[in-house]
């Protein structure tokens, strides 16, 4: 074996048939950004957060349907079916349900969320003893585990996802029945700034909307004024319907705070993503009124390519003051993830200079969201990873090297006792501090 043989082999084998083609590949990359949006939500590093949000705005339009409570059955598996359910500020209406025959091991259902998000709730017929069930799906969390009997828990199916669900009985009395109920988004948007297609919610947990604006289709330059806002803030931009190489820019008081890529389709719940700033970092002038400018360009500030149907906008939130410290960051005590609300309950932190933090979590009766944070690296690049029982649960790339805080999206299910490892996979540790926080699901 010599280098010529090796080179020849690599060129022969590397000449693969590109069956997908560039157009389809670009489409699939855009689709993948939806998953990125769920997994990477920067809460503290402004520059990185803006860029993550830039790639996150690829969720299709909401097409609100008329509520259909009249077709809700009174019961499924002997349980009363809720006609509506709220999740993360939005209301969903029951549209259909299925139930198993008594004693069936499992119940399967395919849920296609083409135009808007959906909720799925589940139930079992027996209360005593409380059955343990597991809901597995090909989207979102790999599985949800529940010991509740009624329609108490739900799972969010994002737009454009098709969820293949399987509800399985792990521990249940003989003759137990299983049921699944599907809910669609109600057409009435929650309070906030809305154009009927997308909404910047007035309240996102403890964060309060201070200012927001959504232009009409084709408006590529928006200007408004707002009162000065003091303290930590988050701003979200909005751009859809423009060209794929167009960017939306936002400035406060003449200071541009970021430019984000435009999405092809409207973003569901755009206010949850965006760049956060501490009070010291805030780009807002100390005195009001503050001039806000939102505008659309092509790449390198050239004219935008897709302007006729472009919709741009922005929202600025005053962040809630209820936070807890984690690895040098202030993390909101209340968080949203996949349509659920969580409240901080427990934190772990490494000694400075350690590359990994490992903790074994005792079981609990409620689902718990895992948040990680890191700081103190040297260098301009860091890659951190969350590993759960030797399996990857998320990785966080930080192009500034300064660290960040991240909602992993990973949820420890009731009754589970995993070992969590948060580690610096790439980057120079320096005085690295790593943190893991757990938050209990409260809705």
């Amino acid at each position: 074996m010599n280098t010529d043989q090796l080179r020849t082999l690599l060129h022969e084998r590397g000449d693969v048939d590109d069956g997908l083609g560039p157009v389809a590949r670009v489409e699939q990359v855009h689709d993948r950004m939806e998953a990125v949006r769920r997994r990477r939500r920067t809460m503290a590093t402004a520059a990185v957060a803006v860029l993550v949000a830039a790639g996150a705005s690829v969720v299709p339009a909401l097409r609100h349907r008329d509520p259909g409570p009249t077709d809700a059955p009174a019961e499924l598996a002997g349980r009363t079916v809720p006609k509506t359910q709220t999740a993360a500020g939005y209301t969903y209406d029951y549209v259909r349900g299925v139930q198993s025959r008594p004693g069936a091991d499992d119940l399967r259902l395919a849920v296609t969320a083409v135009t808007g998000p959906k909720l799925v709730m589940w139930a079992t017929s027996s209360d005593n003893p409380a059955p343990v069930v597991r809901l597995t799906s090909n989207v979102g969390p790999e599985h949800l585990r529940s010991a509740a009997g009624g329609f108490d828990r739900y799972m969010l199916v994002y737009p454009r996802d098709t969820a293949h669900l399987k509800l399985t009985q792990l521990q249940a009395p003989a003759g137990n029945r299983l049921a699944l109920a599907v809910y669609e988004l109600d057409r009435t948007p929650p309070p906030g700034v809305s154009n009927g297609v997308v909404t910047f919610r007035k309240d996102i947990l403890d964060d309060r909307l201070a200012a927001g604006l959504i232009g009409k289709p084709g408006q590529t330059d928006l200007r408004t004024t707002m009162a000065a806002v003091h303290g930590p803030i988050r701003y979200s931009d909005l751009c859809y319907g423009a060209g794929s190489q167009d960017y939306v820019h936002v400035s406060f008081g003449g200071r541009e705070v970021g430019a984000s890529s435009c999405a092809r389709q409207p973003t569901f719940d755009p206010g949850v993503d965006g760049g956060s700033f501490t009070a010291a970092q805030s780009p807002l002038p100390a005195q009001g009124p503050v001039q806000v400018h939102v505008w659309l360009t092509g790449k390198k500030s050239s004219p935008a390519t897709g302007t006729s149907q472009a919709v741009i906008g922005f929202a600025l939130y005053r962040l809630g003051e209820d936070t807890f410290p984690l690895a040098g960051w202030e993390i909101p005590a209340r968080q949203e993830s996949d349509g659920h609300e969580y409240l901080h309950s427990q934190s772990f932190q490494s000694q400075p200079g350690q590359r990994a933090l490992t903790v074994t979590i005792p079981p609990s009766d409620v689902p718990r969201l895992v948040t990680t944070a890191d700081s103190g690296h040297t260098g301009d690049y860091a890659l951190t990873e969350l590993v759960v029982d030797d399996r990857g649960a998320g990785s966080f790339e930080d192009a500034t090297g300064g660290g960040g805080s991240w909602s992993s999206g990973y949820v420890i299910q009731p009754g589970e006792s995993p070992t969590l490892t948060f580690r610096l996979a790439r980057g120079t540790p320096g005085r690295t501090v790593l943190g893991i926080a757990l938050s209990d699901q409260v809705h």
Partner: protein
Amino acid sequence: MAERPSFDEYVAARSGRLLGTSYLLTRDHGLAEDLLQTALTKAWSVWARIDGDPEPYVRKVLVNTYTSWWRRRWNGEQPTGELPDSGHGDHAGPAAVAHDLWLAMGRLPRRQRAVVVLRYFEDLTEAETARVLDCSIGTVKSQTAKAFAKLRLDPALAASAEAEGR
């Protein structure tokens, strides 16, 4: 400074070659496509910040993603302790040597495989390879040497060499 192409232009022009690199790293067509799309997705989210030629950045993301990707994503790739049946009766022919070399490549550790692909498929210099892998030139040299040593000692290639010598 050269102007950065649009993302769509870049994908149209370069994704075929990058798919080749992905395939050589993963040795699986489905995983190669998955790896390439993951790398392009990461690049797309920071496209506005890339000045000039995006190729080094995309290549770096692709290789780093490959070397650090989660084990569960790669469970289709099972290194085998025993040699699979090569299907060749004649171990001395060029096709048989190439086949055995391909099998041996599959048993290289990921980082060594990445060095080999970058050096001999992407034709990067040692310095360029070091920049992609975030390591020193010395590390590239040592990883290359280790890869070649491992390939030469691989039972499949040893059998080929033995047959050639007969």
